[in-house]
């Protein structure tokens, strides 16, 4: 917080004129005020279609007794149905599991962030890349891998245990509360690490040094200065992790349902997919209930996150205090490597091993085979899913980032009227779990008039992905714009460039690396998306995650392993490109 204040103070007397810089800049467009109003309206309509429309359809669905197009009546039956004793347990499960994974994940993330940012542990740069990798692996892959690793009968871990101890007991069973938490932690920890490590690094060392000069010991400084400076970042990541835990679908789907543990997202999924007659009204009412819960959390989180945005930006150029660990640095090094082994090497290794043997769980020479690879490569459905996923990934990431770039520009760089509404709309999906948004879109597309046949096509998925990705796209792009001073644009205007020329030659030219990084991030998001896809796909428009789930449900764990392994290669390739971009382009700015 202190860092942000100092930075604001430095701008001093300019703040008044800076505050109106946008207006001054765009006064030039005063003559084109009509064009601007049309633009804002268009943006509003696009965002409203992506967010407000499915949301209102959700409300309609929860109040209407039948699906769209069927005769029915408006009533509160859906809301009455969700008020059951079972659902109290579902709610406790949802919130409880989220807490249970957030606390250990956050502690682990803080420890890892401290190791990577503030100690002299060897190869810290490499460790950071390794530690963050699990975040980019689609959770469905690790879920399947752990389903194999931690299987009670044929899981590698239990088999190893039995071989070591000579007993027949199986201590590990991933189909349990513990299994859900364990799996959630695997992608939650790297996510929180990414969120926290920069605030560790961005800390101005003089803040700590001055504490030492005032007579405080190292430990006392850590307690009274370091931790308190980190507190905003820690509290807000806690909230973020909690929200994501409640939205989580893969972990409770894979490890909860077989054990009879239900959370809100899987309950919605069950109500639509696994009942004799889909209980749509019940599902939409439940979606609305979870939205209400999210709304409270998001409001809380938003208030906590406010004002924190700039601290990470000002962090540039500091060399943080490094704690010398002595021989202990190899312990911390080993700890990070262990984390990497458990979260990446074990599951990916399981996929690799699983893909080469005839039956999963039977690993002997005579079982070695390539037949699963052949089967996958000959499977037309798989190829179609690959094509769909790649198409949706490329088009979806591009469209989302363009939309996010425009929204961020309007909200950060201009003083146009209505920009707060646009900002608000773009943030709306942040509090809609993919499952809820999926239900909303299901209704929204069904209610569209006949000539617009989105329902059941690949377009349905594209629009849902865009809605889900927009908040992150906006965040990435507004951070990028925040880092570019207004002077750079104004200077271009004064020296003869028009508004469009400035946009192209200065703003886009400077912001494109962030755009590319955000693009990869959005692409990953689409690659891993399951909860909305599972509701919106239909025959012909399956994506990889849906195909994987279907194969898994059919017991074809071996083919799942093959596809999973190929997806991993894709993930590693894109992550490599992204890191290279960040290193080469963004650090020089």
């Amino acid at each position, binding site marked *: 917080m202190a860092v942000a204040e100092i930075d604001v103070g430095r701008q*001093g007397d300019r703040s*008044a004129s800076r*505050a109106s810089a946008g207006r001054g800049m765009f*006064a030039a467009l005063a003559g084109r005020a009509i064009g601007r109003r049309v633009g804002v309206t268009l943006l509003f309509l696009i965002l409203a279609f992506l967010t407000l429309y499915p949301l209102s359809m959700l409300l309609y669905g929860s109040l209407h007794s039948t699906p769209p197009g069927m005769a029915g009546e408006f009533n509160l039956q859906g809301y009455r149905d969700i008020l059951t004793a079972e659902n109290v347990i579902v709610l406790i499960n949802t919130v409880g599991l989220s807490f249970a994974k957030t606390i250990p994940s956050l502690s682990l993330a803080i420890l890892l962030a401290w190791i990577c940012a503030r100690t002299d542990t060897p190869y810290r740069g490499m460790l950071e890349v390794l530690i963050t990798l699990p975040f980019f692996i689609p959770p469905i892959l690790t879920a399947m891998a752990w389903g194999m690793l931690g299987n009670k009968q044929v899981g590698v871990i239990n088999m190893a245990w039995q071989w070591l101890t000579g007993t027949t007991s199986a201590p590990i069973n991933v189909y349990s509360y513990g299994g859900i938490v364990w799996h959630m932690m695997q992608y939650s920890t790297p996510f929180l690490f990414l969120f926290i490590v920069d605030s560790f690094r961005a800390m101005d060392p003089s803040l700590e040094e001055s504490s030492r000069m005032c007579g405080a010991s190292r430990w006392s400084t850590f307690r009274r200065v370091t931790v308190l400076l980190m507190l905003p970042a820690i509290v807000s990541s806690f909230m973020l992790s909690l929200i994501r835990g409640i939205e989580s679908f893969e972990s409770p789907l894979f490890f909860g349902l077989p054990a009879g543990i239900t959370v809100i997202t899987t309950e919605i999924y069950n109500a639509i997919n696994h009942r004799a007659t889909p209980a749509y009204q019940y599902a939409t009412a439940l979606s609305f209930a979870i939205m209400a819960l999210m709304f409270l959390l998001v409001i809380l989180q938003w208030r906590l996150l406010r004002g924190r945005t700039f601290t990470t930006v000002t962090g540039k150029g500091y060399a943080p205090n490094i704690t010398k660990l002595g021989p202990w640095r190899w312990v911390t090094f080993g700890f990070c490597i262990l984390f990497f082994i458990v979260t990446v090497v074990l599951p990916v290794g399981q996929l690799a091993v699983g893909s080469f043997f005839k039956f999963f769980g039977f690993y002997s020479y005579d079982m070695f085979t390539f037949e699963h690879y052949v089967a996958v490569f000959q499977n037309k459905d798989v190829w179609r899913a690959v094509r769909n996923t790649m198409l949706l990934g490329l088009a979806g990431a591009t469209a989302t980032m363009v939309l996010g770039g425009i929204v961020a520009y309007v909200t950060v760089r201009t003083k146009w009227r209505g920009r707060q509404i646009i900002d608000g709309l773009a943030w709306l999906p942040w509090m809609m779990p993919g499952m809820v948004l999926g239900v909303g879109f299901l209704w929204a597309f069904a209610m569209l008039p006949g000539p617009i046949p989105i329902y059941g096509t690949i377009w349905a998925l594209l629009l849902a992905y865009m809605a889900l990705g927009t908040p992150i796209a906006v965040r990435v792009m507004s951070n990028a714009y925040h880092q570019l001073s207004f002077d750079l644009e*104004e200077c271009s205007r*004064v*020296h*003869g460039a028009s508004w469009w020329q400035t946009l192209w030659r200065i703003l886009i030219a400077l912001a494109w690396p962030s755009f590319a990084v955000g693009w990869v991030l959005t692409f990953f998001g689409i690659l891993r998306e399951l909860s909305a896809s599972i509701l919106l796909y239909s025959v012909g428009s399956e994506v990889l995650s849906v195909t994987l789930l279907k194969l898994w449900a059919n017991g074809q764990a071996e083919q799942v392993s093959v596809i999973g392994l190929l997806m991993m290669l894709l993930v590693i390739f894109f992550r490599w490109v992204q890191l290279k971009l960040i290193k080469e382009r963004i650090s020089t700015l």
Partner: protein
Amino acid sequence: MAAVLIEDVSRTFGEVIAVNRINLKVERGEFVTLLGPSGCGKTTTLRMVAGLEQNTGGRISIGDRVVSDAAASLFVPPDHRQLGMVFQSYAIWPHMTVFDNVAYPLKIRRRPKAEIRERVMATLRLVEMDKFADRPAPALSGGQQQRVAIARALVFEPEVLLLDEPLSNLDARLRTQMGDEFRALQKRLGITSLYVTHDQEEAMALSDRVVVMHGGKILQIGAPEEIYQRPVSRTVAAFFGSPNLLDAKVTSCEPEANGRFHLKVDGKGWQGHARAGEKFAVGAPVLVLVRPENIQIGTQASINGAQMAWSGKIVHSIFRGPRTSVAIETGGPRLNVEAPALLGARVGDEVRIAVPPGGAWAIRPEAVN
């Protein structure tokens, strides 16, 4: 014909009046500085001339063209004003080389390649940066970025050059050097320049005329010497250094040939002469301004018979190298004096001080603004 004409220009931000009906005429080839404390409206004024800010009242002309007229809703966007500007942050585009940065205004204007090359290199030579043409912009020091920013502003020979505190991010030594270099360049090329700063020494050293602003208004416009020696008000006087302001009453007021007035004044336990820019009635209260460096200091014997003279004791002394700043407690006023360092003034020394003829300037006491 003026190069920049600002007529009755105002700028309000909601309730706040940043610039309050100012009038200013900058002649062709002139170097005019807007000087004032933070928030006085100087940067806003510059930005209105640039077209980065729209004036809410009044009219701005550049050359013989009106570029902004609030009453007629006329506003020429910045890219059509043919200006050069140097920003406080330099605003060197980090994704371009030095050459590309300087070539930008020409490329935008679609000049032929050969001409661009020639003019960019000529301008870079002017600021002695031609060796760095292919450097990426982020790899430059502050002073070098400054030179590139000036080259970029000059390259297409703008009608007016605007400079927004261009030296404030440099260290003291470089600031003086760059300031002098720039002034020499400006004189040689004869570019009309409008310069914003809060540093009074910079303003005096560089400008043909200084415009002192405060609270959105212009307090005084004049040559640096005039502003410094003959301020119109206490605010302007206090903006330069820490002057002595002595309360006195007028005992006589005679007009002088140059349009000013010669006063005799009577203070608490002293009498003397002062000059003034306006007529005062006999018996009217005045503030007599005496600059610390205009006070002579010596022993009892060396200064005798002068009219504005006091005996006193040094109560405070700061050695500053070329001179020593001392505070002297007399029976009447306490005076700040800049003494020669060689004098070796020490706290506790008994000294005699005097104001030589012409060293005192009288202003209205209520003119606080």
